[in-house]
């Protein structure tokens, strides 16, 4: 939505439009690393304070006296020419904060689900979430140092992904690797939204 009155700055210049990509996956899989690798600025953290009422009832054991919980999301920024600014949001690690996921996923160009083959099940909730929501996503297997490469078809089968969801290897510390993941995601999102008749780039 563009409001004619409010979309120009003090100098009358039209403001750029922001778009976002979500980086999801299990705890410690490299979401924040990926955000930091591609961000032009030091990644920032945004926080929301919750009361017990908004938190899953199954998850307060051991913290019974805790009245508030802080949900944090790390995010980075990439400025694209003059018209667009891209933000990358790492989702909160715990799946119980679904309402934050909803806020981040709404209006996202697409999502990268980061996976670690040593703990593949950790990315199931993210895959389920984006499948249900209809957000275009790809799975990127973060290859930690010294880890052997896995057969991508096996991972695709293990995650029960349809043949239309791209699966690729990546190194979240490498700018070139992260760029490729994000570009492949955008190409996939175009295809899902009927914008790219040409076949997906390998």
């Amino acid at each position, binding site marked *: 939505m563009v409001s004619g009155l409010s979309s120009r700055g003090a100098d009358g210049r039209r403001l750029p439009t922001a778009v976002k990509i979500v980086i999801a996956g299990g705890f410690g899989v490299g979401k924040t690393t990926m955000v930091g690798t591609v961000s032009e600025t030091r990644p920032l953290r945004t926080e929301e304070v919750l009361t017990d009422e908004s938190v899953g009832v199954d998850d307060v054991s051991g913290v019974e006296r805790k009245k508030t919980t802080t949900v944090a999301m790390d995010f980075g*920024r*990439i400025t694209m*020419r003059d018209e667009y600014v891209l*933000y990358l949001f790492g989702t909160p690690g715990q799946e119980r904060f679904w309402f934050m996921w909803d806020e981040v996923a709404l209006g996202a160009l697409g999502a990268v689900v980061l996976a670690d083959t040593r703990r593949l099940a950790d990315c199931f909730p993210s895959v389920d979430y984006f499948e249900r929501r209809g957000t275009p996503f790809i799975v990127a297997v973060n290859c930690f140092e010294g880890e052997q490469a896995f057969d991508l078809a096996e991972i695709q089968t293990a995650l029960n992904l349809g043949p239309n969801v791209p699966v690729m290897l990546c190194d979240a510390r490498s700018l070139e690797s992260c760029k490729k993941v994000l570009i492949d995601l955008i190409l996939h999102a175009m295809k899902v939204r009927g914008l790219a008749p040409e076949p997906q780039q390998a």
Partner: protein
Amino acid sequence: MMPPEDPTQERWPDEPPRPAWHEPAPPPVPPLLDDPSGPMVRPYVMTSGRLEPARGKFDLITLVVAAIPEPDGQLGLGPEHLAILRLTQQVMSVAELTGHLDLPIATVRVMLGDLLDQGLISMQEPEPEADMHDIRLYKAVIDGLRAL
């Protein structure tokens, strides 16, 4: 303020009433003013208890820019409102503002609503999800990523 040793602090709210032999029971305290919820108080006070902004939705990636030059503190605004006007001399997203101010998103949203209401900021909402079929958007993002 409750004394720290007060036993009612340790109780579940849905526990049965205290038995009569446990007298004397201390007077109840209003919620949100006791020690355990201390971190909640400051942001809540900054917004005068409001939870929703007076105007605007303020998505995390809504871009905000000040509509006036850097203020000198004569506008009758609080320090956080002034900090937003200083930060938004450059175009900045709501998420970035919360990160720089180290305040919860809901608090920043309310303060942005105040500033928008007074015409002190301009904003650009992100594209709604239904409008994500503009091929120029995707091409611009791919070009921007390739240029990294």
